[in-house]
């Protein structure tokens, strides 16, 4: 995006700097966890072995993976705590909560794609696509945090639970990791980079701003709300 259009186009604030920092932290831990995790799952691939050898062996890979896992857990806990406090104290709107409209939007949008509706759905602050991604990844990460700790401390876990929990946790952890990886690699990368609506890249999470034309197209309901109320009264954006 060249500078000229940025100045010309009216921009709307979408994310606070804290959200940008949070996103960057997730990018880093995600990349580290994927590299060290999937290379363990697909250890027979050349790329996996290359990663393992360049990180100084499988013991190092596991150590890094666990360390990154702890960081990731802290990020998720912080995120959930901040969101909960924000919503409870009324500073945030529960805009990520899945509503009935999201399900009807899915059907509506698919009908639109197939030419059975005249217009796409009117998105709120978060569209059903974004909610799916958010909750898909959040539940995936929560499952992986849980199973990751089970795999880390098998002898503690088996004091209270049957031994079969360990291989079950392993199967869950690796498969869920693949699910999260696929959601990011297919859905998120498409929607944030390759989608013709945002190509070459949706920069809003990095800059904190989104163009008014995109707001009009993707989040018209939110834009309406914003224009009805004076800006000062707007709740801090999550």
């Amino acid at each position: 995006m060249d500078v000229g259009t940025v100045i010309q186009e009216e921009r709307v604030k979408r994310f606070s700097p804290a959200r940008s920092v949070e996103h960057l932290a997730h990018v880093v831990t995600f990349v580290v966890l994927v590299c060290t995790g999937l290379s363990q799952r697909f250890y027979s691939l050349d790329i996996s072995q290359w990663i393992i050898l360049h990180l100084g062996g499988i013991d190092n890979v596991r150590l890094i993976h666990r360390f990154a896992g702890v960081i990731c857990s802290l990020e998720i806990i912080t995120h959930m705590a901040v969101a909960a406090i924000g919503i409870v104290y009324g500073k945030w709107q529960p805009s990520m909560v899945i509503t009935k409209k999201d399900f009807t939007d899915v059907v509506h949008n698919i009908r639109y794609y197939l030419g059975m509706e005249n217009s796409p759905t009117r998105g709120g602050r978060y569209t059903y696509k974004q909610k799916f991604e958010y909750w898909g990844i959040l539940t995936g990460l929560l499952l992986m945090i849980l199973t990751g700790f089970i795999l880390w401390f098998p002898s503690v876990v088996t004091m209270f639970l049957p031994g079969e929990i360990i291989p079950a946790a392993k199967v869950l952890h690796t498969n869920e990791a693949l699910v999260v990886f696929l959601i990011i690699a297919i859905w998120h990368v498409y929607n944030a980079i390759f989608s013709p609506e945002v190509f070459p890249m949706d920069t809003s999470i990095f800059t904190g701003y989104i163009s008014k034309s995109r707001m009009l197209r993707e989040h018209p309901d939110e834009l309406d709300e914003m224009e009805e109320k004076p800006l000062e009264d707007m709740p801090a954006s999550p």
Partner: protein
Amino acid sequence: MKKEKYIMLVALLFLSVSLLMAGPAGAGNTDLSDTAKACLSCHAQHGLMVTFENNEFVEAYVDAGKFNASVHNSFSCSQCHPDFSADKHPQRKFRSKLQYHEKSALVCRRCHTDRQLRTSSIHTTLLNEEKSGTATVCTNCHGSHAIAQVKKTGKYSDEEEYCMKCHGYTVKMAFRSGEALSGTINISSLQASVHNKLSCSDCHYGFSSEEHPKRHFATRRDYTLASSENCRRCHFDKYTKTMESIHHTMLSQGNLEAPVCIDCHGSHGISHISKERVLIAKRCQRCHAGIYDIYAKSVHGNALFNENNQDVPVCADCHTAHAIEDPRTLSYRERVPDMCSNCHANKAIVGKYGLSTAVVDTYLSDFHGVTLKLYRLQKGALNKPAKPMAVCTDCHGIHNISSTVGPDATVVKANLVKRCQKCHAGAPKNFPDSWLSHYKPSLTRAPLVFFVNLVYKIFIPVLVAGLVLQIMLHIWRYVVNR
């Protein structure tokens, strides 16, 4: 005795016959003494027999031509047969052929003194043995009337026959330590050995019908160690392998009891070692008796010794025959799954016994197996010591491997938690269940694992298909709208 009278009769008959032939018989033997000619008039004829009390006999025949060619050709017969002459032919009695030969040999010693004889090693050995009552029979090696230096007798068709002239008898090697080693070769075991086509000097380098070098060894063990070096001239590949072995390491560190070729293979009676698998185990038993006993009670040893099962591993199958490595090293431990999978991943071998070949894959795809693989992979690339990983032997035992079915199964299971605790400190009794005992998850075995796997097997393709479809529809709509 009736028989002797008969012999005398025959002898007289020949005497009279040969008197008639005396002229032509002596014609070519101008150097022979007159007395010798007289004796030969009878003894040049075949058919004269001397019979002994045990009914053995020798022919009293003298080949005039060979005698004439011998070093003793100028002797008269009486010089060696002092009691006999043209007019004296005493009757003598001998118990056996051996006694006769022993007595005859004493004649030689009149001229060939002990002092003269002791200048050669073989004679020294023989003379030393006389102290213990073993008589030396000179004629055995040198012949009698056709007497010659052994190497010049020329009557040996091959080297083996030549060497056996002495080594077929009681020959002993003496060592400085006072030990002795029998140099007697059992010709039948030599001929039955794999080396039956070889000549003695092929192994006993430096020895021949021309040479018999004197060598001195401090101990009998020194001689064995030195002799084993002979094997490498042909078996160089095996020799180099043994140089990598723990046995060779022990030897080079000064443990002279560490085994060398001869200790396992023997010397003259070498046979194909692989023919009888029980023997392989027995060879190791000589030094490793304790382990042998444990092995004999294991599921493998039991099948070998009691059922003569040739499928089960013997010592050399895991430890190899020559490049025997220290089994306590990490690198040996890391190869244990390979050793077991040689049979346990081979349906042709274990299928017969109703054993699953999935045991190797299930191990290798689990945490320990994967880690082991990666450790082995990174060993070459990273100079970093790996941690010991649980391998087959950790749960199943090493030499004491017992059956995992039947009454022994509970023992295997009971020991499992103790083994886990060695690495996983404080592992509770539930802990071993986290290993699915080589079973693939199913509705009956580990249903939880099976269920989770099944859910994802369906969910992941559906998810990917759904997302890709949405993306494609989105692009399609975008293109259409433009």
